[in-house]
């Protein structure tokens, strides 16, 4: 039987460190991935994911299982990511297009195994992934957050509405616009123009 996040959090409130460890294990990859897509810096994404978990741990004593743990976790992560984006904008270091992705080589290892005998294919795939990431980065902040949550975290509109603190109707139109813009950006980048360009 799988223990729910909320039950683990209640155990954590009592001071059970193993319950907290299980929660970290459950969400570490998804959370790092989510923050990475929103701020586009792997090392900073890891820092912020750690900070998210520590904030959860810090407020464990006051935890009440009213809302879902997952939404709460992602709300903290979203707030931290937003702060990071704003700080970078203030420091003027957040030029999305110029950003060098150092983690690229390390984290493409899985598909490198698949395509190691086809260097052209590997290059093509890698370049296409870069273009897609670049297009995603160019979306407005809220659209990028909503699209990341629905695509990579497979969340429902209700959960996303809770995390981004707006209505389900607003999320519907946000994702609609995000996909429209994404399509335009992909066409501009030379990919995704196979089907009718309109969305």
């Amino acid at each position, binding site marked *: 039987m799988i223990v729910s996040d909320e039950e683990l959090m209640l155990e954590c409130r009592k001071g059970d460190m193993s319950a907290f460890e299980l929660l970290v294990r459950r969400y570490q990859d998804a959370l790092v991935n989510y923050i990475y897509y929103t701020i586009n810096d792997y090392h900073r994404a890891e820092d912020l994911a750690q900070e998210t978990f520590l904030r959860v*741990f810090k407020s464990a004593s006051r935890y009440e299982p009213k809302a879902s743990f997952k939404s709460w976790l992602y709300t903290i992560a979203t707030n931290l990511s937003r702060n990071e984006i704003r700080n970078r904008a203030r420091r003027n270091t957040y030029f999305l297009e110029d950003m060098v992705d150092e983690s690229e080589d390390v984290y493409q290892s899985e598909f490198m195994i698949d395509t190691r005998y086809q260097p052209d294919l590997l290059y093509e795939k890698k370049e296409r992934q870069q273009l897609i990431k670049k297009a995603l980065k160019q979306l407005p902040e809220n659209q990028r957050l909503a699209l990341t949550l629905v695509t990579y975290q497979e969340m429902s509109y209700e959960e996303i509405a809770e995390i981004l603190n707006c209505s389900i109707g607003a999320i519907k139109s946000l994702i609609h616009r995000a996909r429209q813009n994404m399509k335009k950006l992909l066409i501009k980048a030379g990919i995704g123009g196979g089907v009718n360009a309109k969305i």
Partner: protein
Amino acid sequence: MPKYKINECKNVQTQLAAYFDNEVPTWKRHLIRWHLKQCTDCSSRVEAIEQTDKLLRSVEPVKASDTFLSTVMSRATTMKVSQKIHQPLFNRLGCFVEGLQTWMRGNIRAYNLVYMFGLIFAVFTMIGVTLYSPRIEKLNPFTQFRSKSSEVQQERLISFEVILQEEPKRSLKIR
């Protein structure tokens, strides 16, 4: 294209993202599906959404590094220890009160009726004591002393009045 058809397409097109994410009610889903069978424009838009989604999903996800878990756990443990050491008395008291509150809340949830009756009884008793306190005074043995002392005070006042009235008479006699 007739105007009603354009309106229908507009309506459907705003719902297509939600339709794709399975976020529309079943009845609407059937209507949209029925429309898509007849409308090439709208169905090509759904294909475009599918293609964009496929491209987005083709990006390899990143993973947390191998040291991630151990770093978080050691930082959490340090935090726990330092919290215990530096916790001032006031905070500890706060924690105790908080604990008591949650315990009470849990109990109230569990024995709802009993607690509600107890609470109502306590409130009524307090109101009764405040409003009808003179009646209770009768039962108090010290009230007798209190009334005696007030009688003495009244006597004193009377004697004071008498003295004031008599004084002018004396002065007349002297003259």
